[in-house]
Each structure stands twice: as C-alpha cells, then as structure tokens.
C-alpha cells in the first residue's frame, strides 16, 4: 500500500530573515521607532540635535587658533576665536604665578612638579596594587607640596614634620614606662609645644646656617586651575578624616558627643558655602587673637574643609546605618574595643557602601572651589573676567566659559569614573 503520509526527507535551505528583522532596520525599529510615542520622541530628538549642531558646529569649526586679539580673530574667521585659549592657556592654568616676564625667573615648573608628585602621592591611596612603602611619600607630600608651591625656606616644613617624629618617639619611649594613656597625652602635648615655641626659632637658626629654599610666592599670585586643584585637593584630604569622626560622633551613644556632632552637621548643611566663605574673608580674623593674620587661601581651605566635612559625615553615616547590626555585635563578640572594631570591621564595610556618596561629595567640593571667585580669589572663572578686561580680548565670552567648563568637566568626570572602578573592584556580591 502506498504510504500517503508526508514526511520531509530533506532539509529546506535556510531562508534569509525578513528585511525588517535584521541588521540596522531591526535595530532602528526596536530602539528608535517601537511605537508612535517613541517615533515622535526620536524625531524630536533628531530635530533638536540638528538645530543645536547647526548653531554651534559652524561657529566652533570656522575658527582660528592664531591671533593676538579679538579683532585679529574676527578678520581671520567669523566663528570662534580659540586664539584666546591658545594665548591665555598658561594664565588659566597657573594664574599669576611668576612666569619670567616681570623680572623674576620662571617659577611655573614648581606647580608642574608639585602636580606630578601629587599624582605619585595619591597613587598608593587610589590603587592598592602599588607597593605599600609609597604611603610614606604620601605622608610627607603635604609638607613638601606646600614648600614647593609657596616657597620659602625648607626648614619650616622640615621642622613641622619633625613635630610628628617627636610625637612618635615620645609615644614609643613613654608607652612601656608610664602606660598607654600618659604616653598618648604626652605625645599630643609635646609636638604642640614644639610647634608653638621651638619650631620657629630652630627653623630660623637652621635657615641662617644652611639657607636652602625656594623663592617665596605670596598667595595673591596663585590662580587658575592650579588654585582650584590646590583648594580642592586640600579640602578633600582634610575633610575625609573629619567627616569620618563626625559620622562616628553622630552614631555614638555618648549624648554630649552626639549632640555636638548633630548640631555642627545640621548647622553647616543649613547654610550656603558662600556665607562660610564670607566668614573666611571678613570674619575669621575676628575670632582669632588680636593681631593674627593668616593667609587667605589657608582660610578658604579651612572653611571649605569644614563645609564639606559635614556632608561627608552624612554620607558616611548612611554607610554606617546600612551595615547590618550583626556586624557590630560580631565585632563586640570578638572582644574588639571601639576603635579596633571601627577600624577593622565597621569602617571598611561602611565606607565601601558609601563610595558613590563620598566621591559625589568630593566632586561637589571641587566644583564649589569656583565660589572663591566671589570673594576675590583668581580661580579660572574669575580669570575669564580678568582676561575680558584686557582690551585685546574685550568682548570674548563663549570660548573662555566653554574652556573652563571643559577643565572642570574632565576632572569631575574622571573622579566619577574612578568611583565606578572602585565600586566594581570592591564588589563582593555575585
């Protein structure tokens, strides 16, 4: 009997998928035109991009990089006058740091060296694969960097470092003899005595014997991106430890400590940074003994640090609060005391949770350094006005603002990338 059932005995050749289901068309259908709403959005987006580019691209491209003044620019090209960046780049980066034109030798190499060494000093903090010995350099960098930037005799920073060395020696000598507590108190008091009464004369005497030093540069010469980076880096480095202490204070169950921390944090978070900068520029001297007058950049750094420490404390408190209670109890069960528990168990985890917030606070601090232009320091934003005041460049606006924006953008963008890298690296989940 003839078999009527139909059984395919050979495979049909594969057919190409429909045009609408492959390649770029499929991608566009799925990602750009998946519904009427999406199609409208896509078209609106394209139109917006088109108009923005139509307005800006010809201007940005039909430009000139070589000219001595705005008028010369206008003769060469109708568009942007990037020549101002070309000519004023050193000023936007170094401010009024001696550049060899007004009699003094060119000193700008000091900023470059300080910045490169900053990278070296920061590297072991940022990347834990580097040799741990490098931390020693990070520890002395603040003094060294200060000396490089402000100049003066080298003995000042060296005697300042000596204070820490003295504290360490006092602690090591006294701890076995008089007990831990006495040693700690003594190692706090001796360097203070050293710095207040001995360091100055000794540095002066050493300076007479061996006058090693760099040309002293007053704070009024600082400016540009260098000033922003100095304030930003100093603020970041100082506000982090203060923020940790404040966060611990706020989480503490000691009533007075907790109250003081909360009052401080809430006060600082309630007022704008600009009012604190007013304090730095006009009020801080009132609160110090009559006759004290210290550097404006130092005052600004203090205020920026105090400001961002409060935000840092809140971010870290978030991390502390997110930690399961079991971690605290486990640390207690191991018999660790408060500081050991925090150092070995609580903080490493809490800080990890708080990384995005911490880096966010750092980025905010760096951006906030532009506010110093309001109290008269020459940060890049204030320099744009100074450049415009020059009659060669009178009337130039967009090029300068765009360039300053780009400088900040690059720094902050890499900071946020680093935070993402750190989050990935410390990721212990699955």
């Amino acid at each position: 009997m003839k078999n009527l059932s139909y059984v395919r005995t050979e495979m049909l050749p594969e057919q190409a998928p429909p045009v609408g289901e492959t390649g770029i068309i499929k991608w566009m259908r799925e990602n750009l035109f998946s519904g009427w709403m999406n199609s409208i959005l896509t078209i609106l987006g394209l139109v917006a991009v088109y108009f923005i580019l139509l307005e800006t691209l010809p201007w940005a491209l039909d430009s000139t990089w070589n000219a001595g003044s705005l008028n010369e620019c206008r003769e060469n090209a109708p568009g942007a006058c990037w020549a101002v960046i070309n000519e004023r780049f050193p000023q936007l980066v170094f401010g009024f740091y001696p550049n060899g034109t007004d009699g003094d030798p060119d000193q700008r190499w000091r900023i470059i060296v300080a910045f490169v060494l900053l990278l070296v000093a920061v590297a072991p903090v940022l990347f834990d694969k580097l040799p741990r010995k490098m931390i020693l350099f990070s520890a002395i960098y603040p003094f060294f960097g200060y000396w490089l930037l402000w100049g003066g005799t080298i003995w000042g920073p060296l005697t300042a470092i000596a204070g820490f060395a003295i504290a360490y020696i006092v602690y090591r000598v006294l701890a076995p003899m008089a007990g831990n507590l006495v040693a700690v108190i003594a190692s706090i008091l001796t360097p203070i005595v050293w710095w207040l009464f001995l360091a100055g004369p000794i540095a002066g005497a050493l300076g007479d014997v061996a006058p090693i030093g760099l040309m002293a540069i007053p704070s009024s010469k600082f400016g540009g991106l260098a000033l922003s980076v100095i304030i930003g880096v100093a603020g970041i480095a100082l506000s982090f430890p203060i923020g940790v202490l404040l966060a611990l204070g706020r989480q503490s169950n000691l009533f007075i400590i907790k109250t003081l921390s909360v009052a401080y944090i809430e006060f600082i978070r309630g007022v704008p940074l600009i009012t604190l900068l007013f304090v730095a520029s006009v009020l801080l001297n009132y609160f110090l003994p009559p006759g004290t007058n210290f550097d404006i950049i130092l005052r600004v750094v203090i205020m920026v640090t105090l400001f961002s420490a409060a935000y840092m404390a809140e971010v870290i408190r978030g991390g502390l609060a997110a930690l399961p209670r079991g971690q605290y109890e486990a640390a207690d069960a191991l018999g660790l005391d408060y500081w050991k528990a925090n150092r070995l168990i609580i903080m490493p985890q809490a800080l990890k949770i708080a990384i995005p917030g911490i880096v966010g606070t750092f980025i905010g601090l760096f951006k906030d350094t532009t506010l110093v232009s309001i109290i008269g320091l020459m940060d890049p934003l204030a320099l744009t006005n100074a450049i415009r005041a020059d009659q060669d460049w009178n009337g130039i606006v967009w090029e300068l603002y765009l360039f300053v924006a780009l400088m900040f953008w690059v720094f902050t963008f890499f900071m946020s990338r680093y935070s993402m890298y750190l989050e990935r690296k410390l990721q212990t989940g699955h």
Partner: protein
Amino acid sequence: MSMADQKPTQSFNLGMLIYDTRYRAMTIQVVALILFMLGAAWLVNNAAQNLAALGKPLSFDFLSQPAGYDINQKLIEYTSQDSHGRAALVGLLNTLLVAFLGCVLATFLGVIIGVLRLSKNWLISRLMTVYIESFRNVPVLLWIVFAMAIFIESFPAPRAFRGDNATASMVLNDSVAFTNRGVYIPKLVFDNGSMIVVLVFLASLVGIWLFGRWSRKRQEATGEILPNFWIKLGIFFVPAIAAQLVMGSPISLAYPELKGFNFTGGLHLRNSLIALWLALSLYTAAFIAEAVRAGIMAISKGQTEAAAALGLRSNRIMQLVILPQALRVIIPPLISQYLNLTKNSSLAIAVGYMDITGTLGGITLNQTGREMESVMLLMLIYLAISLAISTVMNIYNNSVSLKER
C-alpha cells in the same frame, strides 16, 4: 547565692574614670564638653576683644537705619529711603521667589529627564545621559554666569526692535520680547469685576478637589473609572472662562510696547532672575533626574510584571504601582536637592540678582561695616529656610513612606 548579688568589692578610685567602661563614657563626655566650652569661650572672647578694639560692639541698630541703595527687583514696596532691615526683607523675598520657581521647574524637568533616561529609545536615553553628565560635572556658578552671558550677548538691545527695518522682532504674535535687558511679557490687568472671576477660579479649584474625592469613592463603590483627567481639566478652565465672558472680560492682558528706547506696559522679567532661575533649575534637574532614575530602578521588575498580569495598562502601572513605591526612594534625595537649590540661589550675587546675600550680605555689609552681625543674620536666615523646607518635606515624606506595623 547567685553571682548577681555580689557587690563589687573594689572601692572607687580615680583610675576607674578611665579604665572602667562604666565611668569612661562619662569621663570622655565631660572632657569633650569642657574642651568645647573652652574653645567656644576662646572664640567669643577673641571676637569681643577684636570688636571692642575696632569700636563696633555687637549691635543690630543698623537694621533700622536708612539703606540708601536701590533694589531693582522687588516684590514689596521699597525705596532707597527704607531701612536696611526692609532691604534685607526684599532680598529674602527674592531668594524665596527664585528658590520656589527653581524647585518647581527643576522637579518638572528632573522627573521628565529621569524617566526619559530609562526610555528604551536609544537616541533619547543617550541624549539625556549627555545632558545629565554635562550639567552635573560643571560648577553651577559657571552655568549661572553662562546663562547670564547668553541673555546679555545674544539677545538684541531694545532699540533693535525700532524703526521700519528693525533687526529684531517680538515673538508670539507681538506679545513677548526677548531683549538684552530682560524678557517683556504681557501683564494681567484686573479691572472692576475681576474679583468675581478670581473667586470663580478659586471655587473651581475646590471643585476639582471635591470631584477627586467623590470620584475615588465612586470608583471604590462601583469599580467604574471616570475620565478623571479630562473632567478636572474642564472644571479648571470652563467656569473661569465662562465668568470672564459673562462679566465682559474684566481681566485683560497689557502687552509690552516699545516706547522710546525701552519697552513699557508689560511685565519685565529681569535677565538676572531668568538666568539664575534657568541655570539653577537646569543644574538641579540633572541631579533630580538621577534620583528619579535610581528610584524607579529600585522597584523590582516583578512589580511591573505582577501589575501587567493583573491586566493594568502601562500608564496605570506607572501611576498605581511603580510611582507610589518609587516616591519613597525619590523623596529623601529630592529634599536635599531642594535644599541645595535654595542654598545655591545665594550665587545670585554673581549676576547681580538682589537676593538676601546681595542685600544683607553684600551692599548692607559693605555700607555699614557690620560684618559680624550681617553674616550671622544671613546664616541664621538660611538656616531657618533650610529647616523649614526640610520640615515640610519630611512631613510629606512621612505621608508617602511605607506604613509598617
């Protein structure tokens, strides 16, 4: 005899203040308190000495002296003969004005941008990412002066509108003029009888609220859903427009007109206000967008799928399931963004907008030389504003937060 009954045999000695955990907490606190008091006393003492040496003891009398300077942007009556205190009040109102406008616009933009960034549309989500990254990573002060520069540099002067071959023209049917002195828009003029129209409008707002309650009850009772949005829109517009027509158009628009070298007649929105408002809103919107995105992403996908399984349409899934849960995550960062915006409004000083920092912390401070009093007052005012905002928002946060039993 149990262990607990045993009295500690050792009597108290001084070392226990440090080595005994029962007393150590107290010791630390007392030491901290003493150090704090000493520090505060030192600062206050220094300040008192310094102020006395300068011959200006702490006094707030200057607030009642005539200010002697003009403020171009004011919400209440003010002349240069008024006191410094009133100038500060004008500034405070200006701060509140720009903060309020900024919060509204920033929330509006931030929510839209945050949702669009999560859109499946490749182009739109990329554009929103570019927007967020470029606004978040550049200082807000730069955006403020940039916005101001756009107004001053790229908008025509009022005289460009003059003559037969004017190089600039007003937009929107000759009703709005963008000039480098500011934006001129039509002004509402209230004639006789406009009170009734306003009252009708207010009544219709109450009506919308009552309708909402009634409609919710009806839905709970019968399960029917009315086209709520359209009905509310109708209640919003129809009665007020009807009243306006019936009363013979008592509320009219006064259009700005070019008189001489400047526009008159309309409402003049100053460059400084608009630039500050836009810059603050656009900057803060980028942060709010990130908060919104984080809030929506924090809601697990199962919620969307469960809602879809119940047969809800996609907009009702968003409205009834996702947003109420996402709000709990979004509100706390939103509060801090509002606070940031309000505090950043103090940068108004960079574009010459006379807010409280510009009046009390700027001209008044410079004219009277009362740095201590002015800055302290300035800080207290900002502190009060911040506390007020965070209190109000925390009440709202409590009303939307998860009610746990």
